[in-house]
C-alpha cells in the first residue's frame, strides 16, 4: 500500500498536465474585456457586515448565584466575572474535545502500529487521561463559582469552530499517525496558551485553589506539547532518512 509520502499520481498543480495547462493560460483576450469593478469591493462589503453583526452569543449568568449579590462572585473570580467564566467555558470545551481527539489518535495508532519516533500507547493514554482530568478541574472550578459547566459559552463555541478541522483530520481513516500528530500539535500549542491565561486570571482573582490546580494543569500541558513536538520531529526526520 502506498504511503502519503511516496511519489504517486497526484493530478493537482499546473505541471501535472502541461498541454491542458498551456491552453488554460492562453486566455488573456477573453478575460480583459469582461473583468468588472464592483460598486462595493469584497473587502468593503465584509467590513460593513462586521459593523452590523450581532455577537455569537453571551455568557450565561451563573444560575446557582441568582439572588446572590454579584459582588460575591466578583470576589471569587475578579472584577468582571463574565470574562473568567467565558474562558473557563472555553478551556472546558477544549479539554473535553481533546479527550476525543486523543481517543481517535489512539485508535489510529493501534492499527498503524508506528514503530518509530519513541511514541507509545502508554504515553498516548497518559496524555488522554490528563486531558480528562483537566476537563474535570475546569468543571469543578466553574461549579465553585456557581457557573453552569454544561452550558456553551461564546468562547467555547468559537474554539470548537476553530477545532472542526482537527476533528476531521483525526477521524479520517485515510490520515496517518504522523498527519494526526501534526494536527494534535496545533491543539497542544493552543492549549498551553489557554492554560497560561487561566492561571493569570485565577491570580487576578486571588483564588488560591484555582491557582494551584491550574498551574499543575499548565505544567502537564507543557509536557504534552514537548512530547508531541518531539514525536512530530522524530517521525518526520526518520521518514526523510528512510530509503525508498
Amino acid at each position, binding site marked *: 500500500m502506498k504511503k502519503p509520502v511516496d511519489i*504517486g*499520481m*497526484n*493530478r*493537482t*498543480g*499546473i505541471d*501535472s*498536465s502541461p498541454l*491542458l*495547462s498551456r*491552453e*488554460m*493560460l492562453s*486566455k*488573456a483576450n*477573453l*478575460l480583459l474585456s*469582461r*473583468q*468588472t*469593478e*464592483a*460598486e*462595493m*469591493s*469584497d473587502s*468593503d*462589503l*465584509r467590513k460593513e*457586515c462586521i459593523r452590523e*453583526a450581532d455577537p455569537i452569543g453571551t455568557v450565561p449568568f451563573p444560575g446557582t448565584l441568582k439572588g446572590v449579590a454579584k459582588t460575591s462572585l466578583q470576589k471569587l473570580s475578579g472584577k468582571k466575572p463574565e470574562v473568567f467564566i467565558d474562558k473557563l467555558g472555553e478551556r472546558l470545551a477544549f479539554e473535553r474535545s481533546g479527550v476525543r481527539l486523543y481517543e481517535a489518535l489512539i485508535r489510529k495508532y493501534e492499527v498503524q502500529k508506528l514503530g518509530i519516533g519513541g511514541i507509545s500507547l502508554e504515553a498516548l493514554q497518559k496524555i488522554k487521561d490528563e486531558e480528562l482530568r483537566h476537563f474535570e478541574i475546569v468543571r469543578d472550578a466553574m461549579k465553585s463559582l456557581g457557573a453552569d459547566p454544561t452550558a456553551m459559552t461564546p468562547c467555547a463555541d468559537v474554539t470548537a*469552530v476553530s477545532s472542526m478541522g482537527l476533528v*476531521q483530520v483525526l477521524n*479520517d481513516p*485515510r490520515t496517518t499517525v504522523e498527519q494526526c500528530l501534526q494536527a494534535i500539535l496545533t491543539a497542544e500549542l493552543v492549549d498551553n496558551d489557554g492554560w497560561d491565561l487561566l492561571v493569570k486570571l485565577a491570580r487576578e482573582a486571588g483564588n488560591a485553589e484555582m491557582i494551584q490546580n491550574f498551574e499543575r494543569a499548565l505544567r502537564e500541558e507543557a509536557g504534552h506539547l514537548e512530547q508531541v513536538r518531539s514525536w512530530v520531529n522524530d517521525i518526520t526526520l526518520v521518514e526523510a532518512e528512510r530509503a525508498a
Partner: protein
Amino acid sequence: MALNLLKEKGCALDKQGFTWRELVQQPISKLNDDAFTRVRIILLNGIENEALRFSHACARMNKELQLPLAKLRRIEHHQATMINWLLSSDHSPIETTIGYEQVAIEVTAAVAQTEPDPYLAQVYRFGLLEDFDHMYRYSALLDRLEGKDSNNILQSYTDVLPGRPTSVEHRAPEDDLREHYDRTKAHPLSKMHALTIMSGEQQTHNYYLNIGPQFSDPLARQLYAEIASIEEQHVTQYESIIDPHESWLEKWVLHEANEVYNYYGCVQQESNARIKAIWERFLDYELGHLNLALDLFKRFEKRDPAEILPESLPEPIVFKSQREFVRKVLSQEADLRANGTRIVALEEDSEASKLYRNHMNSEGSPSESVATQYEWKPGTELNKGVAA
C-alpha cells in the same frame, strides 16, 4: 450500440440490495483521481436525486403505483447514498462547489454540441455561459477566502473566466420558461439531454441552498444566496423544455431510460476501476428498474414501449474538456438575454427582467463584489511570479 433497451433485462429488483458497509465505500482521492471521475460522481448523484424527487411526486398523484415506486425508490435512495459518499471529506464546500460547476460546464457543453434540436441546443448554450460565470465567481471566493486554487479541482480541463455576468442572469419568471420538445416527435437524445441537465441543475440548486448558511463569511453567504437563485431559474428553464403532456408512466420510463443512458456512458469512460465497477453494477440495476417501469407502462397504458423508447441507446455524453467550444460560445453569445421563451440580443432584453434584476441588485451585487478585478492564476492570485 450493443445495449438494447427493450430486450436487456438487467438485475431483477429482488436481487438488488445493500449493506450499510457497502453503501459507504472508500471515497475517491481529491488529489489523485481524475477530475472527470468526480464529474461523473456528481452527475450521477444528481440523476439519482431526480429519480427520487420524481418518484415521490408520482407516488403522490398515483395510488396504484405507490408500492412499485416505493420498492424501486428504496434502491435508488441507496444508490444515491453510495454515489454521493464517494466524495472525500477533504473537499471543502467551496471545492465541492467547483466540482458542481465543472459538471454544469463540461456536461452542458457536451450536450449542446450533440443536441439534435437547434432551439434546445441554444437553450443549453445559454445556460452554459451562466454556469461558466459561476465558476469564475466561486474561484475568486475560494482563492480569497481559503487561499486555494480552484484549478486543483479542475485539473486544467475547465477555464476560469467571466461568462455572462451572474448579476445580469437574474430574470423575471416569465423569461425563464422555454418551449418544450414534442414528445411524439423529439429525438430520444433530446429527451435524455433534457432530463440529464435538469437533474444536474436541481441537485446544484439543492446543494447551494443547504451549504450556503454553513459559511461564516458574509460574502460567501450572499454569493450562495445569489447563485442558488440562478440555479432555481435553471431548474425552471430546463424542466420547461420537457413535454408536460407525457403521462406519469411515460415520464417514469424515460427517467429509468435516462439512468441507463448515463450509467452506460460512465461505464464506458470511467478511468478508476473501482468506481467503474460501481457504475457497472448500477447499470445492471437500472436495466432492472427500466423493465419494471416498462411492464407497468404496458399494463396500465396498454401502449407499446417502442412508441417512446428507441431500441438502442443514443451515443453517450462525452466526458472531456470542451474548452474550445465553450470559448467560442463565450465570444459569440455572452451578451444574449431571454425574452419570454426566446433567446434574444441584448437590445431585446425583457423589461420585466430588467426591473426585477435592478431591484435585486439595488443594494449591491455579491457576485460582482466577490470577483472585483479577479484573474485566475496558477497557485492563486497571490502567486504573482507566474505569468498568466
